[in-house]
């Protein structure tokens, strides 16, 4: 590593944005904490308003912070070292997201492999089954819970399969967009990135369709016992991540229209595409463990 690089140690200037973000998170947490209770109790209160205020503040903060950051970056103020810091930071952030999903996958595996069989008397738990729920039968997907809730399993064919194909293609198009950026082929860059965004939107649309189908025709809801719980929490959190990823890609798209990014300097693009690949990989895992198996 050249000495040169280190000589321009760059320490970012003070910034008001983090403190705005802190206020936003406070309002979101406090608002959401009240809102959840008000919603489930059917009471009226200010939780929803506080939550909305927090979300608006958060968006305001994100826009402001990123604008500031982009301005500094375009002015060439950032060193190669800072660029590496950003990349590594993003990589660790994605690792933390992996662990977040791991918690829910862990719940899925535990329920399937351990909890549900035990309820039916597996291992040395014969009496658990006999005494508590003698008529309960352990199957997966758990379409009838010990408590008697009935539901149907979501097949992997149809919408989920289309969605898998769509998302996998979008990973490829996202990659081509990156290649085009590195070759400085702006036309192709816009085309591939635009295509990725369109595929992301189609995915989200079909996901909503699937949810509507599950709720209205299949009696598969968030309250349908452990199968519905894991199904909706895993696909739901994944869907939120796809939404966020799509928004990131849209922002990138507009920045590209404005002529941002060079073949050498495009951290934001790289971070966005990493994120997109990450949500795709999660989906493949999901498709395999939630739908097929």
């Amino acid at each position, binding site marked *: 590593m050249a000495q040169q690089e280190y000589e321009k140690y760059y320490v970012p200037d003070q910034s008001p944005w983090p403190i705005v973000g*802190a206020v936003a998170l406070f309002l979101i947490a406090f608002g959401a904490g009240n809102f959840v209770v008000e919603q489930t109790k059917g009471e009226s209160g200010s939780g929803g308003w506080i939550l909305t205020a927090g979300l608006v503040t958060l968006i305001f903060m994100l826009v402001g912070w990123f604008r500031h950051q982009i301005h500094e970056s375009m002015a060439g103020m950032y060193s190669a070292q800072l660029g590496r810091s950003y990349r590594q930071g993003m990589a660790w952030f994605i690792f933390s997201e992996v662990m977040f999903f791991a918690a829910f996958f862990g719940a899925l595996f535990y329920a399937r492999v351990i909890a549900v069989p035990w309820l039916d008397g597996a291992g040395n738990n014969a009496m658990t089954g006999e005494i508590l729920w003698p008529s309960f039968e352990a199957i997966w997907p758990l379409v009838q819970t010990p408590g008697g809730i009935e539901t149907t399993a979501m097949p992997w064919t149809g919408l989920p399969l289309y969605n898998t194909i769509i998302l996998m293609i979008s990973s490829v198009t996202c990659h081509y967009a990156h290649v085009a950026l590195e070759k400085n082929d702006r036309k192709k860059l816009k085309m591939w990135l635009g295509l990725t965004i369109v595929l992301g939107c189609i995915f989200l649309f079909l996901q909503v369709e699937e949810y509507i189908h599950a709720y209205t025709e299949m009696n598969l809801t968030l309250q349908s016992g452990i199968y519905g719980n894991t199904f909706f929490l895993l696909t739901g959190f994944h869907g939120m991540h796809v939404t966020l990823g799509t928004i990131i890609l849209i922002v990138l798209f507009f920045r590209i229209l404005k002529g941002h990014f060079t073949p050498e300097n495009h951290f934001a693009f790289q971070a966005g595409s990493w994120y997109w690949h990450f949500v795709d990989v999660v989906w493949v895992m999901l498709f395999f463990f939630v739908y097929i198996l």
Partner: protein
Amino acid sequence: MSTAAEELHHDDHHHHAPSGIKRWLYTTNHKDIGTLYLWFAFIMFLVGGAMAMVIRAELFQPGLQIVEPNFFNQMTTVHGLIMVFGAVMPAFTGLANWLVPMMIGAPDMALPRMNNWSFWILPGAFTILLASLFMEGGGPAFGWTFYAPLSTTYSNDTTALFVFSVHIMGISSIMGAINVIVTIFNMRAPGMTWMKMPLFVWTWLITAFLLIAVMPVLAGAVTMVLTDKFFGTSFFDAAGGGDPVMFQHIFWFFGHPEVYIMILPAFGIISAIIPTFSRKKLFGYASMVYATTSIALLSFIVWAHHMFTTGMPVAAELFFMFATMLISVPTGVKVFNWVATMWRGSLSFEVPMLFALAFIVLFTIGGLSGLMLAIVPVDFQYHDTYFVVAHFHYVLVTGAIFSIMAAVYYWLPKWTGKMFDITLAKWHFWCSLISVNVLFFPMHFVGLAGMPRRIPDYALQFADFNQWISIGGFAFGLSQLIFLALLIKACRKQGEPVTDQVWEGAEGLEWELPSPAPYHTFETPPVIK
């Protein structure tokens, strides 16, 4: 680089410490942020301590004396949450902020603005948690471990606030950890190779990895509690095919690495202090690094030692028993190395050294009681008794917290440029040392005799011991006010000026800087020998 950029860039190196409230709100300076973290942690330590005083006042005599049982439970719960997430963890993050850049020859943390954000979301999170105590139904009362169904079926509505405040604490820890890890990977001065890094940096690197790996799992756990309680899911409800035991698995998968998050940086601190006051190099530097790494890796496969009595196949009990006992090996390596460092050294007993020595002895007691708890048939008797309370207070109070105090005394002169009030410091040390043992040692005995933890009342035969414990508790609480006085004096820059090296035997980059350390540490990279 364009000229405009050069101007901007140039400007940047000349901004001086801004003053007033904006300095603290907008700061991107690792020292300012470190100070904020440390003061926040200390305030939380006093708040959580006040709750401990309520607990000990109630337990001074058998029978319900002062508070309602439900309020008592809120006190134990919030005391635990505050001490873990509000005191110990932010204090270590504060130390990392102050020290890591100075120790590796960096100008600042790698991501200074995120650094500011990760601090300033903490006060909000704890405001929410503390505010819930005053709301309808009161605050969380299910223990810091929030086992389902206590936290789902049987909890009150403020559980939602608890969940979201834990989310924010988690976001803060993850961002703090990302910052530390990236700083260490990317900001080391040329020549600062991995095996030249001070152990505090090494231990924090590994702590940061643990944090990023397990805080998201905690987020997952609280999220499932939220949906179980409010949205009709049944992750932890057998009627829906879930399992309350699953909660414990998920929680302790986070929880056990979490206890190492609270002790690894302490190992780093002790490994810095002992050589200084022994005037010798640390014995077995490389083995310390490997021991730290193996403790961290093993900490992922021992979680169910907290669940021996909850129900597991025998094979699993045995596996977790042996895996847990395996951790004692690298821990033993560390204690051995500290003692070997002192062997034939020319020891002197300045205040940081006193705390470090107390740490070695008392932390080892905690480690040994942990070993007892790791034995399955024995734990069947000890589980959920005061013996467990004794164990984790030895490792956390005389372990983690004593190490934090040792660190503050060790580096404070470097931060302020002035020596702290040594008389007060010695009073603080001896009062704390004696009272902490009066407080926690008898807990072993009442625990072995069968006194359960987390209850506001107890059988008559435990009365005498509990009185001693409470007296020790009040004395320990009061002793911390000495520390408060000392810190206030230090922050007002009273005291004798110190040299750059401060302590005769101190080695490392931070001791080559002027005292007090300049606002911007290294404008150009230092040369590492």
